[in-house]
């Protein structure tokens, strides 16, 4: 009953749709940003959106979404451009350039924000909500704007798929094929700015970078193709958006934006640990399997090479376990043939002999 009530709730509908749209655009564009090693560019652009929001409010005197979008696009792109120029024209490295742009633009934004608050304008109510987002304040009209931006951006990506892909993988080569890489790279960056704009209302300028990076990072773990990566990233974005919004509404009062980001982060952690092939867990398992196989080979090798030496007996717990394991597998016998007590009586079976010969042959081939 709770769910039915929830689903028919007007605010909840808006929030869920907004969160889905955000996931749908930030996931795929985040993939390009992450693959181009520009994850932090999204961070700089989103922080730089704040002065744009404030300027638009100062000029128009209202919180109209059109003005806010245009304002944040202008300052966001300006920050990205200045960053690119800084790294290209000076000897500043990318990370330093990004950090400088991010903090300068954000500082200007905060100064403007406090200036607006000091003027005591009645309609300034809640401009600081853009810092961390205010999902509940999403209007149906906002959704239309967010939806159109998402649609246009994804259509552009679909049409210029080849160009975006090649420029991301190997920009210099793309240039030799005659592609205008500056235009394509600038467009990809501008699209990240658009994704940021879509997320302003939902998660705010500070946490927006997580929505660019997290879905892409999770998707990379599960995908073998760029197309697959984009689709999975969009899925991760939508799922985290919707579940974050749901948790927030059910818990009454916990902030939506941070919850969306936390859900996305949880998905990233699970992906990093479990994704087949790339997950850490599989790496650990593989490591122990290889280690155990190597131990086994080494033991068979030693027993085979030094079969005359009677002192070969397991001395540590680990090696005793290995001996027993090999006995179970039928490679070793523990026959009481040894007369002396120092001889543990371990010997290779016929199967063990054959396996040991194979190991020795493989080893000697490797060494030669």
């Amino acid at each position: 009953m709770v769910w039915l009530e929830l689903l028919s709730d007007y605010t909840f509908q808006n929030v869920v749709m907004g969160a889905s749209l955000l996931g749908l655009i930030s996931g795929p564009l985040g993939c390009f940003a992450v693959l181009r090693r520009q994850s932090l560019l999204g961070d700089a652009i989103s922080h730089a959106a704040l002065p744009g929001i404030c300027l638009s409010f100062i000029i128009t005197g209202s919180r109209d979404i059109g003005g806010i979008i245009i304002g944040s696009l202008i300052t966001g792109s300006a920050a990205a451009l200045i960053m690119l120029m800084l790294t290209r024209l000076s000897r500043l490295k990318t990370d330093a350039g990004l950090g400088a742009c991010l903090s300068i633009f954000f500082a200007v934004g905060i100064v403007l924000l406090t200036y607006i608050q000091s003027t005591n304008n009645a309609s300034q109510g809640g401009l600081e909500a853009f810092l961390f987002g205010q999902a509940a304040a999403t209007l149906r009209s906002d959704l239309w704007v967010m939806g159109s931006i998402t649609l246009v951006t994804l259509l552009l990506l679909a049409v210029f798929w080849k160009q975006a892909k090649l420029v991301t993988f190997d920009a210099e080569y793309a240039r030799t094929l005659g592609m205008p890489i500056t235009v394509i790279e600038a467009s990809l960056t501008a699209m990240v700015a658009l994704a940021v704009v879509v997320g302003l209302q939902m998660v705010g300028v500070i946490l927006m970078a997580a929505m660019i990076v997290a879905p892409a990072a999770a998707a990379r773990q599960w995908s073998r193709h760029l197309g697959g990566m984009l689709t999975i990233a969009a899925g991760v974005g939508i799922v985290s958006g919707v579940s974050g919004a749901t948790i927030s509404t059910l818990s009454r009062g916990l902030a939506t934006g941070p919850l969306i980001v936390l859900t996305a982060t949880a998905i990233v952690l699970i992906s990093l640990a479990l994704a087949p092939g790339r997950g850490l867990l599989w790496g650990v398992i593989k490591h122990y399997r290889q280690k155990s196989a190597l131990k086994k080979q080494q033991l068979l090798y030693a027993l085979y090479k030094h079969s005359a030496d009677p002192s070969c007996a397991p001395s540590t717990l680990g090696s005793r376990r290995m001996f027993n394991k090999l006995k179970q597998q039928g490679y070793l016998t523990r026959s009481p043939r040894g007369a002396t007590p120092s001889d543990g009586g371990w010997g290779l079976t016929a199967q063990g002999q054959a396996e040991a010969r194979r190991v020795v042959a493989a080893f000697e081939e490797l060494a030669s």
Partner: protein
Amino acid sequence: MATSDLTDTALSIKNLTVSYHNQPVLWDIDLDIPAGVMAGIVGPNGAGKSTLIKSLLGLVPSLSGEVMVHGRPYTTQRKRVGYVPQRSSVDWDFPTTALDVVIMGLYGRLGWLKRPGRKERHEAQEALEMVGMSAFAERQISQLSGGQQQRVFLARALVQQADVYFLDEPMAGVDATTERAIIDILRRLRDAGKTLIVVHHDLQTVRTYFDWLLLLNVRVIASGKAEEVFKIDHLRQAYGGQIALLNDNESLMFSASKVK
């Protein structure tokens, strides 16, 4: 074969100068490379070998100079030029397959909007076959060895069906088998009348691989037929005496201490 039409110039560079942070990296390069040769670009570290190729292709801005490919400006001849960048220039963790990387070589021909289809896949598969990588077509590029990655890059240039190929250190960091395979492919291309311009760092193999040489150290030290360029005086000039060669050619045997 290789010298059938030496009058035809595959690549002609006039007065090319490139600088980086106000330091000349390449100074007043004048160069003509005939068609149908396997040309090596050789020189010490920092001589501008890779920069030369990159500036020819417009990847690095040049202060001055003009580049002609088969008698016409390079920008109008892109379709006749293939490029094999250094393997380390891209992130091999990109989510894609070997075949897909080779298909990228056809993006230029496909134009702005057309998507690669069955024909392109087939051509790419053939190019992978040529470099002995057809079994790896669907393999993730991150799982390929260095030599295999290099071959994939070579295949990507092969599908372009270009007339002039630029290769930036294709033999760097590959095993001996791959090096042989690459050289065999390059020789076959040359015998088919293509021009290959290869940045190379291993002086020991220069004489066996190349029939035309450019010895570079910011300026052109010498250029021309390999046997005329690969001389001790030229090498000493390019490498500043810091050179020791083990070669059956007696005149090239000397130690660095003897020179300085």
